[in-house]
């Protein structure tokens, strides 16, 4: 699409389009998450990979649209289903794959695994194996930003299951009270573990901010541009000092809660119907309709990304295990405040 067409598109309604770099980057990262997760699933089911893992396949547009709307210094907190958030925030395949294989060059040196991937240097404050674990950390990160006087905002990813945790209500109250720069982005994938949202959750999710004066928006979580725009709007509000926003991104996980489980709680027909709304072909169709990329261009991205994922597996398999003698390292920091007399 020409710059002129971009401008025209940008003037359509209030759909603010990101730059071409961002548009292409979002495509590459969505494909990256998909291929990374498919490979992880394959390797996990083949019992080559230790631990447990939760697939983000189907939800790529939420992580990618959300992170693309942030500035480089901004922060995210994540969930047990966190691979997509990490990739969207820029954590590389080799560090992630090595972590999943429990190897020394992993993002957390093999201490964390799938549910604890973090890269503080990139503002990725950690996947979190506790549902709702990100709420307090996000509120605290935003509190620190307010005190330290920087403009960093924190995007808190969480699931529809977590919205019923006390921490959600506690943190939305506190961040609204102090107008902290936080965005609460709920990935409503319709299931809390194996239980459908209808069985656990009263009322409309987007209304949950209303009593606290926090605006709630509901978006199609399989539309990466819709997520991007919603997060941009919320980010602008946060940076103006107006406090948190709540965004409900409706999406669907194509696989089960954790890789390897039986999925008796939903029908194949439901899944097939949902797969028709796969966020990646949808976005590719849009990119192609806008003339930004053609089918061959898309295929090239898939090829490149798939090769990178394969290389990351080779890297992880060849990497060293952590030394058992270091198993107790990093439990405690040995550093102290600069003013300490010790």
């Amino acid at each position, binding site marked *: 699409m020409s710059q002129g067409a971009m401008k025209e598109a940008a003037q359509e309604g209030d759909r603010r389009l990101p730059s071409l770099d961002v548009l292409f980057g979002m495509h590459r990262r969505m494909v990256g998450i998909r291929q990374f997760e498919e490979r992880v699933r394959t390797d996990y089911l083949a019992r080559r990979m230790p631990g447990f893992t939760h697939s983000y396949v189907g939800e790529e547009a939420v992580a990618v649209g959300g992170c693309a709307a942030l500035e480089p210094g901004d922060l995210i907190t994540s969930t047990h289903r966190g691979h997509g958030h990490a990739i969207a925030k820029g954590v590389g395949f080799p560090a992630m794959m090595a972590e999943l294989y429990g190897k020394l060059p992993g993002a957390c040196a093999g201490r964390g695994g799938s549910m604890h991937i973090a890269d503080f240097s990139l503002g990725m404050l*950690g996947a979190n194996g506790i549902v709702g674990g990100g709420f*307090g*950390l996000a*509120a*605290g990160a935003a*509190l*620190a930003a307010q005190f330290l006087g920087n403009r960093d905002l924190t995007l808190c990813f969480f699931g529809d299951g977590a919205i019923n945790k006390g921490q959600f209500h506690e*943190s939305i109250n*506190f961040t609204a009270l102090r107008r902290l720069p936080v965005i609460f982005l709920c990935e409503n994938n319709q299931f809390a573990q194996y239980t459908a949202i209808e069985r656990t959750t009263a009322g409309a999710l987007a209304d949950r901010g209303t009593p606290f004066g926090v605006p709630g928006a509901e978006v199609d979580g399989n539309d990466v541009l819709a997520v991007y725009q919603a997060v941009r709007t919320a980010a602008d509000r946060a940076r103006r000092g107006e406090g948190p926003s709540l965004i409900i991104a409706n999406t669907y996980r194509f696989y089960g809660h954790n890789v390897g489980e039986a999925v008796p709680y939903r029908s194949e027909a439901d899944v097939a119907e949902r797969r028709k709304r796969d966020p990646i072909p949808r976005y590719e169709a849009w990119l192609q309709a806008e003339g930004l990329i053609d089918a061959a261009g898309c295929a090239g991205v898939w090829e490149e990304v798939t090769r990178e994922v394969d290389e990351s597996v080779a890297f992880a398999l060849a990497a060293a295990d952590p030394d058992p003698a270091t198993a107790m390292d990093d439990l405690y*920091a040995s550093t102290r405040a600069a003013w300490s007399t010790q």
Partner: protein
Amino acid sequence: MPYLSMGQATNDAMRVAMRLDPTIIVMGLDIRWGGSFGQFRGLYDEFGERVIDMPISEELIVGAAAGAASRGLRTVVSMSFVEFSMGAMDELVNQAAKLRYMFGGQAKVPMVLRCADGTIRSAAAQHSESFEAIFAHVPGLKVVAPSNAYDAKGLLIAAIADDNPVIYLENKKIQPTKAEVPEGLYEVPLGKAAIRREGSDVTIVAYSIQAVNAAQAADELAKEGISAEVIDLRTIVPLDIDTVLKSVAKTKRAVVAHEAWTFGGFGAELAAQIQEALFSELNAPVMRVGARHSHIPFAPALERAIVPATEEIVAAARRAVALSGQTMQRAS
């Protein structure tokens, strides 16, 4: 040198640290009004917005304190009564204690959780307990339990300067006790026990209020000709086991004492470590003094029936000495 209560000493510690370090913030309910025990009195007047009144949202308070600490602040949190911290155990155990380790050393979490523990004036089951064993059981946390005003200030400053989450336990009953407390900055290092009194017949290992009671017990025991060495651990994580073992190797007998439940208590850990290291040198089993395994009742007569004081420490030391006499007779 100022003569301060423990509450005044910790208040002084907060001022000293906060003047040195603008990244220290204080979070808790009623902080601006001084806290439940006056331990934060006047801080808002001096430090303004760095002193934050929090909603009664324990999970958020601890989760946000950990999050802020991981992002460059030093956070001091008031949980008021230690029982209230149970509402924040998810954030404390699953987040604050684990962030550093599970992220491969990327994060540090310099936060202090101040909690008042122990019995006082029939506060009953939900305002009287001591949970140090619960905290000590969790890797990644440090646990501090001072017994006097000098240590209270020095340990609190050391805890604030520490780059790890520290549980700072303030026994309610001994808060008014006064001692000479130096002005300005000094630290009592975490993980260093103090030998309060030297003795040769039995070592009493204690902390917090039971360290105070142990000193009184040693006076009683001296009247009976039993020479007790009193060790005040001051911090239970990190544990200064070397000082304990050195003393017990000399006295051959040990009594471990705390106000928390004996059953599953920290004294059990001490007893186990002592016997593992010194089994063949002990003249008596390691004696434990603690609360009976019940909730703390309201009626004063019942409360004393559950919670130990000086008398129980004296009795345990006597028993250790008496048992070792029997042991020696059997051996001979």
